[in-house]
């Protein structure tokens, strides 16, 4: 049972507003250690520098999109085991299937509430406490 307050979560999204909203949702779940990255490259940097317990990444980003990041994370020595939740738009089933095949652990559809996020995280990591 992971302890929410002990989790180190990385939010990846090119939109600051979305990152902040995600952060607020995570904080509502009791997560205290939240890192942010505005693109895939920064996300890899962050993941290389510190242990993470979860990556929540948007799909739609310039430079390196969420799928490319997922591949990079899964091939990264320090981060390859970190659970990965892909944030997608509505109706993109094909993408979600691809993400599942590429090693994503779950997906969440924008816009999401803190409760939805909790459900998704718990599906991946077990009940949060």
């Amino acid at each position, binding site marked *: 049972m992971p302890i929410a307050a002990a989790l180190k979560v990385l939010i990846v999204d090119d939109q600051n507003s979305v990152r902040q909203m995600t952060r607020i949702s995570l904080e509502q779940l009791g997560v205290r250690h939240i890192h942010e990255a505005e693109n895939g490259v920064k996300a890899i940097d962050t993941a290389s520098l510190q242990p993470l317990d979860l990556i929540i990444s948007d799909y*739609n980003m310039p430079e390196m999109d969420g799928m490319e990041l997922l591949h990079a994370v899964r*091939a990264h020595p320090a981060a390859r085991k970190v659970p990965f939740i892909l944030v997608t738009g*509505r109706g993109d089933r094909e993408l*979600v299937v691809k993400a599942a095949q590429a090693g994503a652990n779950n997906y969440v559809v924008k816009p999401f509430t803190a409760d939805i996020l909790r459900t998704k995280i718990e*599906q991946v*990591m077990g009940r949060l406490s």
Partner: protein
Amino acid sequence: MTTLDQLKNTFFDECSEALQQIEGGLTDIRQGHGSDDTINAVFRSVHSVKGGAGIFGFDSLVGFAHVFETVLDAMRSGSLTATPEIADVLLPANDVLTDLIAMSRAGEAIPANYGSESRAALDSLLGKAPGDEPDDGEPAGDFDGLDFMPVMVDAMDDAPAEAADGRQTYRIAFRPQIEMLRRANEPLFIIRELQKLGELELVADVSRLPHLNEIEHDRPYIGWSGTLRTAAARAQIEEVFEFVTGDCDIEIALEQPAPVPEAMPAADSAANSADIMPADAVVAAAPELPTLQAPSLIPAPAPTPEPPAVEAAARPAAAKAAATTMRVEVEKIDRVVNMVGELVIAQAMLGQIVHGLPEDTSSRLTQILEEVIHHTRELKDSVMSMRAQAIGAVFQRMPRLVRELATKTGKKVRLEMHGENTEVDRSIIERLGDPLTHIIRNSIDHGIESPEARHAAGKSDEGTIRLMAEHRGGRIVVEVRDDGAGIDPERVLKKAREKGLVSQDAILSEDEITNLIFLPGFSTASTISDISGRGVGMDVVRRNIQDVGGRITLKSERGRGMTLQLALPLTLAVMDGMVIKVTRETYVLPMSAIVECLRPSRSDIHNLIGGRGLLQLRGNLVPVVHLSDLLSMESGVTDSDERVVIIADAGDGSLLGIIVDELCGHQQVVVKSMEESYGAVPGVAGATILGNGRVALILDVEKLSEIAINQTTSFTPVRPRASEPVPV
């Protein structure tokens, strides 16, 4: 402001950036040079708008963005081709999106059918009848059947390289130490616990078992090694050994599954097993990997878990990654700007004192002061660059304007933009929008001809307006050039005479005539159209530009088009000035207006009445006036030979010589506005504080030149109505 409001603001700021991207991309597509990347970028931007709008609950925005995005997605996937015709539908859609964002930001209620026309056009691109329910995609729940693997999280977790069934094989080896049995820990219990986790295969290592008569009953001689195939995480296995970790040599390592996991593309898994196997796994697997060389068994350096593939993929992207940005409130930067201004003044004061000191004391001080001056200048430049914004923020509004006006007038107009990234001080950007809008309105309304007229004149049906910005000699030059009919001097002159703006018998050059359009009360359109005829003439445009210390010049070629050039200062707050003295008063002339300074001999100046004259300057005659005459003061220096003539650019390209008594030097001055306290004073651009703490007026050369031309004798600047008779 609540956090949510702040976030909404952030979102809307992001929207502005996205809209710019969309507009730019669509314009490229419209002009036929849109690539896949262009479409992707546009799609991404619309998608971002939609995503954020969803989060913040702007439903109308989400709905429209969704249809928009669906069309772009179809273009991405190739089922729609990115033709200029499609761009013609998408560009207005972006206008609707812009409006929806603006309304959402303002908190206005959005009319239910807002943008329905554009939406119908988008729908028809997708082959849908306009009335069809928008396809909002599948509900989220639909994906829930997908097979995602739950992962138990633990700091020590070693899991995800799973086999297809989610179970993995661990190599486990443990050998109890002597303490273990003495602490009443039983290896059998551990083995039983491991068995509960999955399929366990262990082999007892009895190699250390001594001869029977040497056996001590409380010593463990047996070790075990083998494999455990389990769905449990590594942490659970470690839990089994929890009480014996100190008393027992344990090795737990994830064995790389022999079959390639289905989910992993082949290339990735190759990289996986070769490059990025964790160090401990390599150690454990070593006996089975004879090709592995001996040194690699030393855990640390050899099998460097460095995945070259990722490096290669990540680096170029890193190089491309946009510069990190931070949003700062404008007031905060303005405060820094003000402080820099104060610093410039304080430094000037310090300079004054240092120069008054005896040389042996001052030389070292001067050296340090020079450094301070240098740093202050750098500081000023950096702060100014913080305030600088790409002029694209203003340009961005123009394509839409051009589109709308072209539709309204039935003309074909193409807008070309160059130098959108040119950086200009924010305060100038804010005041550039209206003049530029007006100039472009004018160009389309009066300049560009109808397709028929263009055709008849042997031009292409489509008119071109070229909007350009660049840095040029310490100024920003913004140019609007059209290939329309240009200005008809005869018509302009006739109109000007009708309106009594010029006397009937005045003889004017063509250039002078075209510049008449800047006169207040001038409007060439015979009928006031609802486009340019909104009561704002070119005089207001010129006033606006002059208010920010800019100059406007016009060049027109009949039948070929016209060019309006705006030369703007880089910043409004601090400028380079020439400190001059007239009588006992000190003034500052902006360096940007000064062409050269000279001390002509008496014979070079041909005197006219009232201290005026003409200066022979390399074969040209330049009108010269004494500043004291312009400002209605007694000149202290009577001998013309000691006077200095400053040749200044009067703004319209003509030169004016200004005679002053003394040049005191060049320095940076902080511009303080006087308008709030005194109203606009003709000929005075502002004031500044000099090093000696005294206030000096900053003169407006352009205005002075006008005064010099308009006043035949002398002029009193403080007198608000220049037309009043002035005593000679």
